[in-house]
């Protein structure tokens, strides 16, 4: 019996992406029209410019991909488009309920932010020809990450909104720099760990079947821990602290393949949480609210969580229909609670669909991490994917009572510019890495044309002994 091995011809799959993208745009536009039909009984007057603009943005990214990253993953962009679009629809729907029309509406601002976010993502695709270029800036990104993370604590710049000091003001704009710190730190962790992974994974003593690291190798995790503690204590932001520290431990584990790092990380975080719980009433209240959101005392303190749960419950399996529910009864229905808002109007079916879309997004990221050939790319791709998954778990887990509620944005959906910009950049980075992962192995170069500068990857292959 003989088998012929067909040479695998890699396909760009850009055609599939286009089809999915058109489907995504159709879903969003249908949702937008349904909302207005349910609310006002009319098709929105601005449907042509909105639909046109949205289509141009999405197809614009698609064309850039055809040109600049032909082998990029075909599923990431359609998922991002539909999530961003459904978020927009919900924000628009809440505008209608609140009587905020036209340029006064949150949706108007969110559309502008979406446009900027798409532009930024395209810029990343243009400027960053190869993700490995980022490795050069390992320590620059570290500095940027730390500064961004701690910026809200600087007097005169930082602002406290809703009890958490995670905002900065630049002129009239409020910004959550933590969203960008997430990316910078993922780049830094990837760059740093790919260099030090051998030391971190090999040296150490074996205790109880686990190989524990040497004392001096504990430095980096302790630095990350202290940083997370600073965020926790001074910014009162359990969500961000959990996200950064979780991201670091996850990437450390992937780099070293050592379970002991996870054990150490969990212990350190448990200590931090125990400390926070004993030291700050702020956290105690959150835990209390989580355990019993419906008690009379807790309802008087904050009925937000209860209201979100009631909203989801009123949606049931099939939802009230867009525009026909009462998500506006919940405070922050357009940001932290956008998931319950969508759950109320789209039902459990819609909520599950949204979670599965995020799951697919992360799955494509993981696939990219598995497929890409360089260690830095692997770490960066898994780090970014994990950060999206973990952030989603923290925020949706918070509103569905899996864990205590801590304020984080829902990627691509929540109202807010910083979150949108940062998450579109994450998507652009994943697209760039996936383009490398799916691109066919370059043929061994016979010679490099003199008039063409050698692409980075070819040069490296030649240099290897």
């Amino acid at each position: 019996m003989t088998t012929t091995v067909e040479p695998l011809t890699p396909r760009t799959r850009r055609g599939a992406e286009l089809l999915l993208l058109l489907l995504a745009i159709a879903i969003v536009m249908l949702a937008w029209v349904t909302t207005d039909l349910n609310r006002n009984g009319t098709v929105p007057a601005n449907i042509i410019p909105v639909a046109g603009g949205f289509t141009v943005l999405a197809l614009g990214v698609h064309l850039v991909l055809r040109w600049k990253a032909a082998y990029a993953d075909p599923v990431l962009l359609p998922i991002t488009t539909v999530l961003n679009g459904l978020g927009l629809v919900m924000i628009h729907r809440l505008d209608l309920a609140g009587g905020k029309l036209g340029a006064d509406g949150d949706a108007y601002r969110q559309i502008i932010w979406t446009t900027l976010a798409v532009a930024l993502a395209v810029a990343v695709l243009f400027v960053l020809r190869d993700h490995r270029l980022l490795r050069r800036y390992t320590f620059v990104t570290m500095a940027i990450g730390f500064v961004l993370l701690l910026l809200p604590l600087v007097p005169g710049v930082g602002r406290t909104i809703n009890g958490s000091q995670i905002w900065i003001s630049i002129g009239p704009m409020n910004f959550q720099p933590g969203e960008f710190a997430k990316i910078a730190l993922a780049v830094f962790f990837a760059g740093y760990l790919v260099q030090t992974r051998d030391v971190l994974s090999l040296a150490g003593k074996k205790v109880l079947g686990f190989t524990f690291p040497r004392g001096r190798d504990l430095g980096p995790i302790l630095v990350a821990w202290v940083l997370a503690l600073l965020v926790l204590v001074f910014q009162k932001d359990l969500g961000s602290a959990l996200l950064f520290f979780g991201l670091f431990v996850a990437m450390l584990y992937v780099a070293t393949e050592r379970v002991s790092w996870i054990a150490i990380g969990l212990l350190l975080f448990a200590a931090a949480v125990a400390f926070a719980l004993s030291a700050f009433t702020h956290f105690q209240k959150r835990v209390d609210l989580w355990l019993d959101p419906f008690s009379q005392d807790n309802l008087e303190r904050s009925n937000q969580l209860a209201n979100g749960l009631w909203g989801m419950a009123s949606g049931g399996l099939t939802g009230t229909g867009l525009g026909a529910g009462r998500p506006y009864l919940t405070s922050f229905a357009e940001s932290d609670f956008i998931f319950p808002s969508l759950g109320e109007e789209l039902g459990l079916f819609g909520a599950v669909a949204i979670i599965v879309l995020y799951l697919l997004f992360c799955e494509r990221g993981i696939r990219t991490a598995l497929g890409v050939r360089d260690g830095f790319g692997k770490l960066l791709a898994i780090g970014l994917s994990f950060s999206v998954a973990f952030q989603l778990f923290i925020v949706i887990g918070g509103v569905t009572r899996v864990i205590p509620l801590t304020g984080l944005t829902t990627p691509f959906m929540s109202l807010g510019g910083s979150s949108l910009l940062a998450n579109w950049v994450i998507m652009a980075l994943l697209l760039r890495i996936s383009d490398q992962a799916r691109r066919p192995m370059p043929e061994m170069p016979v010679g490099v044309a003199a008039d063409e500068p050698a692409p980075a990857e070819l040069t490296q292959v030649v240099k290897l002994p």
Partner: protein
Amino acid sequence: MNTPIRRLSVLIACLFTALLVASTIVQFAQAKSLGAMSTNKRTLLDSYSRERGSIIVGGQAVAKSVPVEDQYRFLRSYPQGELYAQLTGFYSYSVGAPYGLEHASDDLLSGDADTLFVRRMTDLITGRKTSGATVELTIDPKAQAAADKALGDSKGAVVALDPKTGAILAMVSHPTYDPNPLSSHDLSKAAKAWQSLSTDKGKAYLNRAISGVYPPGSTFKVVTAAAALEDGIATDENSTVPGPAELNLPLTSTNLPNENGQACGPGDETTLIHALEISCNTAFGSLGLELGGEKLRAQAAKFGFGDSLQVPMRVATSSVPADLNAPQAAQAAIGQYDVRTTPLQMAMVAAGIANGGRVMTPYLIQSVRSANLDIIESTPDPVELSQAVSEQTARTLTKMMVSVVQNGSGARAQIDGVEVAGKTGTAQHDPDKPPHAWFISFAPATDPKVAVAVVVEDGGVTGSEVGGGRVAAPIAREVMEAVLSR
């Protein structure tokens, strides 16, 4: 690095699974209990903005939702408010629907009942607004009006049943109230109405027909007679029973006298039929002694005492106390000593005898229709609650009760050309107040179409058996006439 990436992706899958499970718990498993929380504003707004089903009596709505131009969208209105208040209850923004069908059939009227599931699904698919189901009652509007008019300003209750089916033909309780101000969208007006209703001294909010429990007095002698006949102590209406002026009770120095202080017949003896005609206390007291508490209790239970019924409103449980000693059994046999009954229960006693001993389960809802009048459920064939007595016993009891109306204390219930069977009752409940006047009856005796129980609170005359016959019997007659003339 691919191995730890794969392991990490398992963790990510677990995180997502947790979110999926949590969403399913909130939106599916706990959806009902979350929606039922009293603090949930969505549920409240929801129920007010939905078109609630009507309650129909004889083709006319006695409760309906009228579209209005305000945030609640529908105003609940009760066109014949006071006449049907205790049946409909009311539906208020501030206190919900605590009483009547608005409470007991809330899931049907609101459209949330499980039986309406298929309908809600088609509503969802076709985009039709879900509206509540219309509930059609068994009430005969003429009988209801007659009962209301005959009871007049007296406190008390009237229940009329169809003995063959158990259908409730009339249910009136006085005093009554107007439900309309309570469901007003002018919240201060509604709050004021609720304040005055909930503190009402006459307890107008109480549906005395099913929630009022009274000592049944002499009407309970019918049950005692039934027990005696079933037990064989008495073989027929002409059996001799003791009838002294005063019955010696064992274990106690108090004796059981007749109200008029005279013996019920020559030689301190009388027949069973005569004892019922004149409502002879000592005759039934001695039957009670002979039977004992348990047999009385068992006979009462066969008529429905001790059952908790829902019509669909919850009916207070009527009861004969357990473990009666001899003097207590004698007292219970004449409807005193903590025997407690609702007017509906006594109507069931009359109806059971009328229907050859078969007590039918009472019900108020004839059919449930969707908003466009398709029948969703109609009450199935009448359900027999129990065979309380044999047909033979039922015939004997009927003869005796006919005689009560023709020759005895129930003369005022006579109807020209119709044989009426009945029994009066005058029940002491408070030494300082006049006794309650009772009357239970059915007609025509040979082919019963209606059974009635009437109680008029404090309507009797102290120390006299005439209260039931004078005050309550005419009310029962009016109701029976109204049913028979249709």
